[in-house]
């Protein structure tokens, strides 16, 4: 007889690792995008200041790009894996 579908088999996790990481990195990524929209004006002013000649914070966009790529990159990777889209093992 088969086990009821809503009960995981003994030793099997309710959520796969990919699903857990998708949720974790998804929340982090969402948080970063919320911050980006909250500080929309500040970012704009910073670029304007750099353009006027104040180069103190010129590297901030590059740091933002790197942080977003690592967090959002991890999220999108786990996202497809959680949906079952995995690379072929050679």
């Amino acid at each position, binding site marked *: 007889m088969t086990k009821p579908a809503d009960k995981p088999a003994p030793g099997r996790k309710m959520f796969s690792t990919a699903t857990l990481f998708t949720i974790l990195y998804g929340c982090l990524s969402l948080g970063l*995008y919320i911050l*980006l*929209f909250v500080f*929309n004006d500040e*970012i*704009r002013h910073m*670029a*304007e*200041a*750099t*353009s*006027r*000649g104040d*180069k103190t914070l*010129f*590297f*901030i*966009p*590059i740091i*933002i*790009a*790197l942080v*977003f*790529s*690592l967090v*959002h*990159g991890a*999220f*999108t*990777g786990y*996202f*497809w894996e959680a949906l079952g*889209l*995995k*690379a*072929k093992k*050679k």
Partner: protein
Amino acid sequence: MEAVNFLDLNATTVFLLFLVGFIGGMVSGFIGSGGAFVLTPAMMSLGAPAVIAVASNMAHKFPKALVASIKRNKYGQVDIKLGLIMGIFAEIGVFVGKEFMTNIRNNFGDTGTDLYVSVVFIVVLALVGGYVLRDAFRCKREGGDVEGAEHITPRLAKWVQSINIPGTMMRFHSIGGKRVSVLFIAPLGFATGLLAASIAVGGFIGVPAMMYVLGVPALMASATELVVAFVMGMGGSLFYAWEGFVDIRLAMIILAGSLFGVQIGAIGTTYVRDYTVKMIMGMIMIIVLFSRLFEMPVYLSDLDLISTISEGTSSLLSNISFGTLALALLSGAFAILAALLKGIKQHKKQQADAEYAASVAES
């Protein structure tokens, strides 16, 4: 200095940028480059000034290339050493290319640069795109569809690998541990950077150059190009950020979509054979070539090199040209998805057959 004119973001703009980013990302994760030729004009038509569009596009490209190269490195497809060396020479190419563009602009105005860019596009795409496509069909005919078919080193690459220039030789794992002189890699990297500075798609020369001049298999060449794109893009973005031209909000919205696409593109490469990458790359290049051809009469007329064409005709030709670019990207994305789905289906069938054979053997 003029104030930086950043776009006001609304729901439609965000959605469109996300979508174009997603499709561009998919193509980029698969063939090593792509998306930029549609994204820059798309941002400009949404109202971003050209310099902000180019700078923001570059700021989304280098993190995208970073994510894609990390992913494809996991599949053993990246030659980091080759990518970094080519990237350094490409960086030099980018700066020379920018100077060259500025000189043309000062002497012939914006139309002069547009004409120059289009001619470069047409010549490069006709020669390289035609060759890549012909080679893809040849590979398919000669057993490329057989699982585990061996990579055939092109004749030119065999010659390049046989030349020994003492003090300049380096070993690369992407060409089976053979050695190649840096003096051959330098002009290839330089040309990739030069092209990237002119038409924003350096990969159109970088990938075929690695394949046919150095002898790198297509799958590895397209993956290694991502390292080149990262080095080039990071340098270019720092340069633009120094001037305050990078609209990082815009860049991160495109990145949001493109990283979803990049993952699919990169996964797709593990299900296809070498010739499929060549075929999709060649197909995109030829469609982009036609897009540039539609714009040629407009530029020639603006520079008074042919009789003036009416404003209506000119705007119609520009729209057809942009539509063809979008078609290149969309058809590339569909071809990648189709190849991926076909690959997954075949793989599942093979696994099921193997499991069945094992169970029969056991009983």
